């Protein structure tokens, strides 16, 4: 739905914002954290069935979903999703354990593990949404972050998003202590919000064209 130029603008906006997340997470964990968003696209709920969506979003099966609602003029809900099988290792590394200390087969997450995951995802989602809010020159109001473990089937992915017509899909990569974690950020947006986002991007692209020619 987005042209290459529009994707480039959005990727830059998000990657500048996410750089701040990486710095905050590094400070919190005392370890070098690298974050990047190599892929962004705007999809409709119908596209959820396309292979590209499944490839980007997450494996089928159990996933950790952390979400915040945001509102005012630009409104919707942002989800950070990543496979549950990576959760225990991510928590362990954040708490200073080595990869060898963590039993990656251990699927049982404790309440305190969810707290750590909630804070990490809170930092990431806040900075991305903050970055988009600044880009749109729109002040956002955020809800409490919510975290849960979900079992995702292809039908489940549709149900997750059916209330919303458009989904901004961001592939997210996090590097921590020589380990790579992959997840996805889905920002479910109303038609008004999508229009606002695209027109802001186009305005910026137009200004760039004018300054070049």
């Amino acid at each position, binding site marked *: 739905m987005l042209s290459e130029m529009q994707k480039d603008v959005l990727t830059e906006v998000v990657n500048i914002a996410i750089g701040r997340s990486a710095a*905050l997470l590094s*400070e*919190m*964990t005392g370890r070098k954290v690298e974050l990047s968003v190599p892929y962004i696209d705007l999809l409709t709920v119908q596209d959820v069935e396309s292979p590209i969506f499944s490839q980007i979003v997450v494996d089928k099966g159990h996933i950790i979903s952390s979400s*915040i609602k945001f509102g005012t003029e630009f409104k919707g809900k942002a989800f950070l999703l990543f496979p549950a099988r990576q959760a225990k290792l991510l*928590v362990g590394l*954040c*708490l200073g354990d080595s990869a060898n200390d963590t039993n990656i087969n251990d699927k049982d997450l*404790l*309440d*305190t*593990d969810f*707290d*750590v995951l*909630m*804070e990490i995802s*809170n*930092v990431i989602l*806040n900075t991305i949404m*903050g970055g988009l*809010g600044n880009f749109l020159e729109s*002040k*956002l*109001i*955020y*809800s*409490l*972050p919510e975290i849960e473990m979900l079992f995702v089937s292809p039908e489940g992915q549709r149900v997750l998003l059916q209330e919303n017509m458009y989904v901004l899909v961001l592939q997210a990569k996090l590097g921590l202590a020589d380990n790579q974690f992959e997840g996805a950020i889905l920002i479910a947006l109303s038609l008004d919000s999508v229009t606002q986002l695209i027109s802001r991007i186009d305005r910026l692209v137009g200004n760039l064209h004018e300054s070049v020619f």
Partner: protein
Amino acid sequence: MNQFFDRILDHLNLGVLLVDNNHSVLVWNSWLERASGVPQEEAVGRPLGEICPCFQKDSFKEMLDNAIVNGEHRFCSGMLHNAFVYPKDRGGDITEKGRQNMQIEAFYQNGKVFALIQISDITSQYRRINRLQHLLKELEVDYESVKESEEHAKRNALYDPLTGLCNRTLFYDRLKHSLDQAVRSGQLVALLFLDLDGFKSVNDSMGHLSGDLLLKEVAARLNTAVRKTDTVCRWGGDEYTMILSDIKTKNDVEMIAENIRSLLSAEFNLGDKKTFITVSIGISLFPVDGDNSETMVKHADSAMYSVKATGKNGYQFYSIT
């Protein structure tokens, strides 16, 4: 009315504080007084960083600004930050500070924006989880050692500890399985009963240790004489049995028996000693010589005694005469 709400605030089992855009404290409830040792009248009006040192850090100041300016809602886990409010004299000792979770959000009142902070104590939950984790680790270690000794007991129950060959229990189980399969496939099953000739004299002249070495080496050579699907068993003492499944003709069994005789006829090196040994083999065939495990064993044993009686070092099939 204000007094009424103040009393409610003071009854809450969590810390509630409000700061303005200069990060000065406006609300400081009783929970925070107990947690910090700083009374409300001292806290209100002071910069938060003076009472809670973590708010002197840029990252925490930024959380307050982001709530007030951008409306962000932020959660901080006690697992990553330990505690946020604690008595001044415990600042250096992390273990005494306990663990707290914190939420920061924007609070709007009469056109002004403040940062509302809620702090809850998770120290007892953290300690409970810690104890639970230790308990689970101990249980895991216990479970591993139980599993290990179970494996050991299971192995000893089914295998001969000296040679590693299967014992009679496993032998009968496999024989029954082979006979059942042969009924379906229509193939023959051969049961070989082997007894070493002159083993007692090896034991007597060279000692039990050499005798044991000889039994182990015989077991190793017997294993090389059969297919992976066949079974070699130590029956007891110097006696072995073998189950050969899916046999087409009697001739196939003769070739294997001859091969065994030949393999065992080679010299045995038992440490610094050397010796030779021969074997007497009795053979029964299913279904011609018996239709059940016990009869098959009895007839193979009987055939082995016929070999012993007629000069040893050979093999014979069971015959009624």
